[in-house]
């Protein structure tokens, strides 16, 4: 019997792993379907694309934060690196001569298509993670969060000063507008499958074992550093892809586009949805996107009961602040917590206590003593 379930523990075997991946893909499919319907309305087109990119970004963030329990403030840096690397790679050679005349020869002479540009963006971000990870992943808790914030500041500073490569603090323009609906949502599907597969892989289980019981995991032979590093590199890759998509949607951006405001957005989306799971990341992105768009309408003025109401600009950030505090106060593990949409091929066996189940009995990083949700929906 095939059915859908919302549960937070791990599937014990290959079949379960496939089911979990299929469930996450199904959730992404629902999001894509809704996005596709909205996309038909011309005023919504850009919002739908930005939503898809933000969803990829939040999933990238979630892959690291959900699996390791370290809240990263540095992921926007990976987005920036992905945007610049992917954007410059995709820029036509002739435009490069005008926009970036001092680009080194090998870079100036090549231009690539949409898909390779995404891979270049992801790879550049993953490389940065691979280089900085061995240092950053040694730290835990708040010290690690602050060190990742340091990474964001380093990257922002370097991008703003490396004028031959990035035009410095001025905005980089001339990136071709390659990002399409298919491009964004196909990437989303790939990214969702990748992160669901990682979540239930040995590497993912080890990362969560270190998150929940660092001493026990280490005693059992799990390397704290290495298990975190894989999650870090994969999440940087995903975030970098989101950056490259972003670059090819906006076509012009500056280092300032990837700083604290973008960080606030990602954190709010991840926390509201539940940082423990992929389904939560999708839900949180949707909720915050809707709140943001509504408030943006209010900022530009809406008639309420015959009176034109204008909210001063910046209200969306204040609203994000309120949403964060209320969420952490009343539902600290987010709307969905660590639960995932999963496809099951047989009834769940709650009494089973294999090693995979122990590691997967997820205590979300922003934890309460609330038991994980186990609502089951018959199909």
């Amino acid at each position, binding site marked *: 019997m095939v059915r859908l379930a919302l549960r937070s523990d791990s599937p014990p075997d290959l079949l379960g792993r496939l089911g979990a991946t299929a469930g996450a893909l199904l959730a992404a499919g629902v999001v894509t379907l809704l996005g596709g319907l909205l996309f038909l309305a011309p005023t919504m087109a850009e919002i739908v694309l930005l939503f898809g990119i933000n969803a990829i970004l939040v999933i990238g963030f979630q892959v690291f934060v959900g699996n390791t329990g370290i809240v990263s403030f540095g992921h926007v840096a990976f987005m920036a690196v992905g945007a610049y690397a992917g954007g410059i790679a995709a820029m036509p050679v002739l435009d490069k001569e005008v926009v970036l005349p001092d680009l080194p020869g090998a870079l100036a002479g090549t231009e690539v298509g949409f898909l390779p540009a995404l891979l270049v963006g992801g790879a550049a971000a993953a490389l940065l993670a691979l280089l900085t990870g061995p240092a950053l992943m040694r730290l835990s*808790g*708040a010290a690690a969060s602050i060190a990742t914030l340091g990474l964001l*500041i380093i990257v922002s*500073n370097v991008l703003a000063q490396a004028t031959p490569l990035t035009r410095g603090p001025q905005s980089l323009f001339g990136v071709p507008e390659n990002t399409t609906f298919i491009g964004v949502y196909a990437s989303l599907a790939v990214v969702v499958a990748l992160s669901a597969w990682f979540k239930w892989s040995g590497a993912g289980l080890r990362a969560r074992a270190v998150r929940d019981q660092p001493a026990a995991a280490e005693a059992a032979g799990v390397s704290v550093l290495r298990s975190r590093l894989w999650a870090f590199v994969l999440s940087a890759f995903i975030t970098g892809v989101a950056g490259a998509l972003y670059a090819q949607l906006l076509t012009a951006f500056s280092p300032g586009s990837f700083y604290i405001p973008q960080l606030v957005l990602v954190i709010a989306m991840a926390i509201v949805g539940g940082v423990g799971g992929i389904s939560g990341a999708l839900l949180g992105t949707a909720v915050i996107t809707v709140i943001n768009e509504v408030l943006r309408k209010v900022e530009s003025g809406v008639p309420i009961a015959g009176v034109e109401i204008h909210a001063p600009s*910046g209200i969306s950030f*204040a609203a994000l602040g309120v949403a964060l505090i209320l969420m*952490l106060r009343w539902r600290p593990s987010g709307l969905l917590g660590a639960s995932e949409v999963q496809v099951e091929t047989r009834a769940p066996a709650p009494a089973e206590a294999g090693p995979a189940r122990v590691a997967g009995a997820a205590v979300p990083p*922003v934890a309460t003593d609330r038991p994980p949700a186990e609502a089951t929906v018959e199909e």
Partner: protein
Amino acid sequence: MTALVQHVLDALSVGSTYALLALGLTLVFSVMNLINFAYGLLLVWGGYAACVLVDAGLPFALVVPLCVLFVTALSVVMGRVAFRPFIGAPQITLLITSFGVLLITQYIAILVFGEKPRVLNTPDFLTGVIAAGGLRVPVLQVVTIASGALVVAAFYGLLHRTPFGAHLRAAAESPETARLMGIRPDRVLMIAFAISGAIAGVVGLLWFAKVGAVTPRSDMEPTLKAFIAIVLGGLGRTSGAMLGGLALGGIEVTMNVVLPSGAITYAQAIVFAVVIALLVLRPGGLSGARTEAA
């Protein structure tokens, strides 16, 4: 020789600002594990208060205590309304909560004062320069170092010579035992927020007297410096906070002196890289405090 003395004075004055910032932040951290993203905003509000009071024609000698008082009250309100419900929550929850508090209080500042920078008119004597021998020392630098020393002395007096201080230290060291001894955790927390706010008031005045103008977004730089200082010194120790602040000041001034002109634009990135490198060598910070406890 005079150049060296000059650099040491620079480092001391920058470092003592950072040390004070870190001290205020650490104090609350030691009681409730909160690393407060909104801390820099207390400075901003202090800066705005000073602008308003100076423009209203009050003498500077009156502006200073009023500002410190205002920021102290603000800090207590912030702690009471926003953070008290979260006593006992995990560190990361607290960190992100403070992020939310930052967004809200910043928005209020934008509503009240607008985005444009507001100039802080300091009295003339603060902008003067003392020339002695080959040295030229800005008065503000002397005032900064002196206030730093004074605040630290007052802080230690309070912490080690008064019952409040004893309660605070007890609650920081062993919250459970302190509770059993009849020390109310929420009261201790409010005292910590008050002291931390008073320190923020002093630093806010020094900071914006140096920068010259306040904007609603000037909070990020002091907050970041304080964060780096406490992590560098070792989370949760007052001595570590001060050590970290002074060390950060030292690193910054050294970078400005030794870096070639081509690399000076990367100074911020290099400072952060140095700090991260130091943390890799000593994950517990310079004072070797408890950081590993995630």
